[in-house]
């Protein structure tokens, strides 16, 4: 009895840890799509860059891959944000000037290129075998406390990310971004350099995708090319944002937790299926999540917590101007 309870608790700790990491990535996507209307279909690419950067920076020296440089974890995570941001800058410089739908195509392509590079440049990434021995904060603690302490780290990072993005949006910068999303021609007429603002938002959001990748590598103490498959990152993250409420940061976090809970529970269910069914299970899960998305979109098109609009007006209504 006690053991089942313990098992259930550990299950929830793991679920919230991964769900929380997803929340960071979904906050990044919300910056791209929800706030700026930028269709990033290559989340997996930024995720992978972040995950491998921190893995290389924080692992002990190894002949199997580049580095490691044995740096502290927080420095690895910072490094992940920087590399993801730099790559986003390069991609954005090229693609954000083009028509909006080109960004989707370009990001898919670039994410695939990164995946192939990570898989094949063995000297750097240890190829398909991936990078092991990625340190996890508090891994020396005894069993439940180690996981719980790491969950604490995740919650802290989610809170910090939420705080940062909300702060940016609750400022003239966020107002310009909303204006651009509403009507980019009018934003140009209002003297805003639309391309520059979009580039900033693109880099900003991608940094959190990189951070999410880094946290994943630390959570599993391992990163390999499978973790960067578009199904688990790009597809699922999009579903989370849409279900949670595109344009609303709290919705983004809730969507990440809810969808991840459902996703991981379906894994539990498929575990009981006969073996030849289990093979098809992953497709079944995608189907189920797709169905959920369909139902959500038809009944709550704004998501669980829809975007509040107009934001500043509401607050000022309560305190009328002199």
């Amino acid at each position: 009895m006690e053991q089942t309870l313990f098992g259930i608790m550990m299950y929830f700790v793991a679920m919230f840890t991964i769900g929380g990491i997803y929340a960071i990535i979904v906050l990044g996507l919300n910056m791209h799509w929800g706030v700026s209307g930028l269709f990033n279909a290559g989340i997996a690419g930024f995720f992978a860059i972040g995950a491998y950067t921190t893995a290389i920076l924080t692992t002990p020296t190894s002949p199997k891959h580049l580095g490691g440089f044995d740096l502290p974890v927080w420095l690895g995570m910072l490094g992940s944000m920087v590399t993801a941001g730099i790559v986003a800058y390069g991609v954005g410089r090229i693609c954000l000037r083009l028509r909006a739908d080109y960004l989707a195509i370009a990001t898919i392509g670039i994410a695939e290129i990164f995946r192939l590079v990570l898989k094949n440049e063995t000297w750097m990434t240890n190829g398909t075998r991936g990078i092991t021995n990625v340190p996890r904060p508090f891994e020396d603690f005894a069993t439940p406390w180690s996981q719980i302490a790491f969950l604490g780290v995740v919650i802290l990072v989610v809170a910090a990310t939420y705080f940062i993005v909300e702060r940016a949006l609750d400022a003239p910068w966020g107002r310009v971004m909303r204006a651009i999303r509403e009507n980019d021609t009018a934003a140009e007429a209002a003297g805003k350099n639309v391309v520059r603002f979009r580039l900033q938002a693109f880099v900003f959001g991608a940094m959190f995708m990189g951070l999410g990748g880094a946290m994943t590598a630390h959570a599993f103490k391992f990163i390999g090319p499978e973790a960067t498959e578009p199904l688990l990152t790009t597809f699922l993250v999009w579903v989370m944002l849409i279900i949670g409420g595109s344009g609303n940061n709290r919705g983004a976090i809730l969507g990440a937790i809810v969808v991840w809970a459902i996703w991981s529970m379906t894994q539990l269910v498929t575990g009981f299926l006969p073996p030849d069914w289990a093979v098809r299970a992953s497709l079944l899960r995608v189907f189920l999540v797709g169905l959920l998305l369909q139902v959500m979109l038809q009944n709550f098109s704004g998501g669980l917590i829809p975007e509040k609009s107009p934001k500043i007006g509401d607050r000022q209504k309560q305190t009328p101007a002199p």
Partner: protein
Amino acid sequence: MTQPLISVEHVSKSFGGIQAVRDCSLTVQKGSITALIGPNGAGKTTLFNMVAGFMPPTAGRITLDGEDITGKPPHQLFARGLVRTFQIPHEFSAMTVLENLMVVPMEQAGESLLVALFVRGRIHKQESEIRERAEQVLEFLRLTHLRFERAGNLSGGQKKLLELARTMMTDAKIVLLDELGAGVNRTLLAELATDIERLNREQGYTFWLIEHDMDLIARLCDPVIVMAEGTVLTQGTMAEIQANPAVIEAYLGAGAAARRTAP
């Protein structure tokens, strides 16, 4: 003659097969209220789009204050004091009227991501200044009661006013107004004409406006430039324009001028 504020030199624009503007040359003098008239499809809006940087000309040159601005993006021209309104209103519909205006001023410290994140103190003071200016503009245009309204909910005429309000949120040198009067009721339009005159006289704004209301043009504008089929037909005072058979012909079709002068 002094150096013109805007000079359009042999400008052309084609969209695929359609030549919307062809070899068009004209000038707008500093301090003037210049009208641009012509039948629908004459290329007036297209010319405005090119002057304000929203599309590059296929050929020709445009200067502002003697400096070549051909192909410069709108935000750079905005920074040099050239602003425009749209024939079809372009509001930020999910934002309040007040926010629509507060977004406009240049060099807001809080538009920098770093300031927004780390130096909040610098934002608050500037925000209240911008807010005050926006409130003044709204009062000037009698829109104060709508300041917390979602811009998308405004009527067509109110959206036109919001277009004008946006140009007043910056210290413009020249304002291009594209059919500001269309959809605005006549009483209000008369008031607007007074406002434009005042802005022109007191604040030194140069106006260049596309308009269909001939009474308004007669009252405000000198000179009047007439465009037809993508190019400048003629230019002069309203009286000169009205006496020109070529203009009547452009508006009413061949033969109309002859019929009109007959009796």
